[in-house]
């Protein structure tokens, strides 16, 4: 099985090839670029924005912005850091405009609870699937910055300092977000599962 890390490295290299083509005048290559990075953009925005339509609009804006600034990409950071930072800032601007200044809103929680209850039938789910659904549920209860940091670290495979540059904050803050978030998640999972189930 290909690990997250290897997959992300290959995305990075394919992204660089796309940029090379686009800068050489091959506009169609941007389609591949979108397909490579849409998961990253969507996974960050989904942690910060509740409304699906707004999310789609914002993701589109981000890619168009990326296209317009493609020749500004200096190559001194990873593409995912560059796009990630753009995404994070765009989301924050959106939230500020929408006066959702408080990032620790619980709308997302309600929203996902509603969705979860309709399909949460643990009978035919394996234990890991069950645990992963629980984990989603618990992750949604965390503050937005923690959710974002967790996703960037565990799903997108970014390092501490890359996350720090995406979120424009010191590396120490990223670490403390991650540590505190995981500690909370572990505590909450231990409330639901036997210790033996987690230790395996």
């Amino acid at each position, binding site marked *: 099985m290909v690990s*997250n890390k290897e997959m992300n490295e290959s995305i990075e*290299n394919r992204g*660089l*090839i796309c*940029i*090379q083509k*686009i*800068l*050489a*005048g091959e*506009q*169609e290559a*941007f*389609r591949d670029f*979108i*397909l490579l990075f*849409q*998961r990253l953009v*969507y*996974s960050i925005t*989904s942690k910060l924005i509740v409304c*699906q339509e707004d999310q*789609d609009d914002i*993701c*589109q804006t981000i*890619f*168009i912005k990326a*296209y*317009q600034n*493609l*020749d500004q*990409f*200096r*190559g*001194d950071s990873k593409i995912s850091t560059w796009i990630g930072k753009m995404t994070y800032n765009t989301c924050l601007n959106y939230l500020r405009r929408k006066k959702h200044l408080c990032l620790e809103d619980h709308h997302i929680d309600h929203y*996902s609870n509603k969705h979860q209850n309709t399909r949460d039938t643990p009978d035919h789910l394996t234990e*890991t699937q069950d*645990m*992963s659904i629980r*984990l*989603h549920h618990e*992750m949604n209860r965390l503050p937005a910055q923690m959710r974002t940091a*967790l*996703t960037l670290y*565990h*799903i997108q495979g970014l390092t*501490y300092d890359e996350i720090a540059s995406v979120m424009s904050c010191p590396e120490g803050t990223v*670490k403390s977000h*991650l*540590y505190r978030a*995981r*500690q909370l*998640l*572990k505590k909450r*999972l*231990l409330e639901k599962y036997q*210790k033996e189930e*987690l*230790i*395996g």
Partner: protein
Amino acid sequence: MKHLTDHEIQAWIDGDPGMNRFLIEAHLHQCRECRDCLKSYQTLYTVMETAEKPLNIPVDFADRIMAQLPEKSFKRRHASLWKIIGLFAAATFATGIMIMTSPWTQYFNESSEWAQRLNRIFHAIRISLHWMTNRFYGTMIWLICGICILFCLMTLDKLFSCKWRVHFNTNQ
């Protein structure tokens, strides 16, 4: 016995360079409780890596963007090897002249044959540049050389940005 903190255990899994790997591993080796804590974190990491909720990306997402992409022609940056070699040569040449016309240049200690030879070459160049080394011309030459070096460095920096990184990364 003082147990490991949750932070230390996570730092160990992350491979955080700020931790004391030796002390943590020594403790893990002899403490079952902390090993159990480590295991539950490892489970958490594994579940988290596989636990991305469906992202609901529209099927025609890329098409929608391609349809509204603005017209834009990117300025092409031609970065040929010759250009880079030329720039390096220009920068070296300018630095050379700066050293040569400098009143503070110390010649090499004439202890070996190659030092003597170099000194002779330096001396010849210095003589031929002698007419320029009065105060006014000297300052002008320094100024021009300085600007030339600055320009070379700036151009090199530009050339070595994206395009070259792309080139090196994709050819590995």
